[in-house]
């Protein structure tokens, strides 16, 4: 019973973390068409800024309540990631397509490298919270662990909800239309009076800030972070979630994140033997095969750029009428 709760809450919180990451990358990549391969870099910046704030404030004033520390941690994480996003974005958003991808990839490698050599946050080994968890208490205590997990489930839901609402509201404003037009044709956007650089920077910084939020949530949940957790493959994983769900589709992102997180988790437990010898990580092959098949059958992603309730089949299912969704 306890193991099941622990397993379920673990999956739930980590899915929330990936949801915030994938939704914010969808804003950058799906809406604005900026091909970023460095999202894990902002995730790392948020995780480390938030952790450093919480851990060092706690050391400076052990009496500060956990909730206050956590709020400060969120601010530090989002602010830090946004600032780094601005610094990275200013020069690199002049680049387009593949070039931006390479620049952002380079950025995320630099982040991991710096963290590996930054003794003040633990260097290449982990940066642990020690006994510090929120709500107060130690993790080896069962009651404290349950409270810790429940708190993070609530925080996860809040983070995903905020992220979804903010992106949705942007999408349905005139700003959203301007952002979408960037993906289509930058020159034409400028001709319509859109300040292209400003909007690209805005989208990039906002996406980075949300990645930072995912970072602090991840850090306070696991209470132990290491640079290796934010490597390049994580950026690819987040990008896969976005592409698979459909560039520009928020509900598609939800489905893709849950599937791409849970399927490996479930398959990891199973064992396959070929010619008498066990094959390690056999599921990676299946995973790759599923991805290849999906890109052949649905190159636009599961939902394309539509939302779930815009799809004809779902509309019929719920007996909804009115204007149909855009064709992907």
């Amino acid at each position: 019973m306890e193991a099941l709760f622990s397993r379920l809450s673990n999956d739930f919180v980590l899915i929330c973390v990936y949801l915030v990451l994938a939704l914010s990358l969808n804003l950058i990549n799906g809406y604005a068409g900026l091909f970023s391969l460095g999202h894990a870099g902002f995730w790392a910046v948020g995780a480390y800024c938030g952790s450093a704030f919480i851990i060092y404030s706690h050391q400076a004033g052990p009496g500060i309540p956990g909730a206050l520390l956590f709020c400060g941690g969120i601010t530090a994480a989002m602010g830090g990631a946004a600032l780094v996003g601005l610094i990275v974005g200013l020069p690199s958003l002049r680049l387009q397509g593949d070039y931006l991808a390479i620049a952002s990839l380079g950025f995320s490698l630099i982040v991991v490298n710096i963290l590996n050599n930054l003794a003040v946050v633990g260097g290449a080994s982990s940066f642990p919270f020690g006994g510090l968890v929120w709500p107060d208490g130690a993790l080896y205590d069962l009651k404290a662990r349950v409270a810790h997990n429940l708190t993070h489930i609530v925080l996860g839901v809040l983070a995903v909800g905020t992220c979804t609402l903010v992106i949705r509201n942007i999408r349905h404003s005139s700003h959203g239309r301007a952002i979408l037009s960037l993906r289509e044709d930058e020159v034409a956007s400028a001709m319509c009076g859109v300040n292209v650089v400003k909007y690209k920077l805005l989208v990039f910084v906002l996406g980075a800030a949300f990645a930072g939020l995912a970072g602090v949530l991840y850090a306070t949940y696991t209470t132990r972070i290491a640079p290796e957790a934010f490597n390049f493959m994580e950026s690819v994983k987040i990008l896969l979630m976005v592409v698979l769900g459909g560039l520009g589709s928020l509900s598609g992102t939800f489905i893709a994140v849950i599937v791409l997180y849970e399927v490996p988790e479930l398959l990891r437990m199973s064992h396959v033997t070929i010619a008498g010898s066990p094959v390690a990580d056999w599921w990676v092959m299946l995973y790759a095969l599923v991805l290849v098949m999906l890109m052949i059958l649905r190159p636009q992603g599961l939902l394309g750029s539509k939302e779930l309730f815009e799809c004809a089949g779902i509309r019929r299912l719920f007996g909804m009428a009115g204007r149909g969704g855009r064709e992907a």
Partner: protein
Amino acid sequence: MTLRLENIEAGYGGIAALRGVSIEVRAGEIVAILGANGAGKSTTLKVISGLVRPSGGAVYLEDRRIDRLRPYETARLGLVHCPEGRRLFANMTVLENLEMGAYQRGDKAGVKRDIEKMTGLFDVLGSRRAQLAGTLSGGEQQMLALARALMARPKVLLLDEPSLGLAPMLIEQIFATIAQIRREGVTILLVEQNAHMALEVADRGYVLETGHVAVTGDADELRNHPAVIEAYLGGA
């Protein structure tokens, strides 16, 4: 509004495209720029709207110097460039394309009225509001590009080859629309390969040759100018 180019020089990576081009478009006029491929017609428009920064000379809109402004800033001054190749937002609907045209306008009611007006002016667009712009035919796309430019309520309109690749009947319709836009007080600078049609609607014209103004004059004058007849009107 009056648009004035003084001795504009511009190029691409060291290759000169314009060598001292001076052009004036007075308020309410239609002025045509004619010339062969590579003469610098499109570059001239790009310099005016800020897509290409000139290496010499100056551009004035009324008395304001605008050659250091960026494209979105010139657009906000009412100088709207309808670029070569339509450049629609292909994966956005016809309606969204029109709304993007009005991006810089604050008057919601006026925008709504103008959308009705555009779908009346170009009736093919009315029935296709919810269709993606990329799925329209070439002629419809050209209409939409023009309509999107008009949605900005331009004071000066820069048109780059609006007749390119269109059937003769559609070309007639486009030029009829251009004449109508002018009657509403919009100043128009028109780049065209189709010298016949361009000189029919234009008041005056400039003929560009390898980056400089070779001939200039009233449309009637140009129509009867031996060099223009030989090069662009195909003998007479």
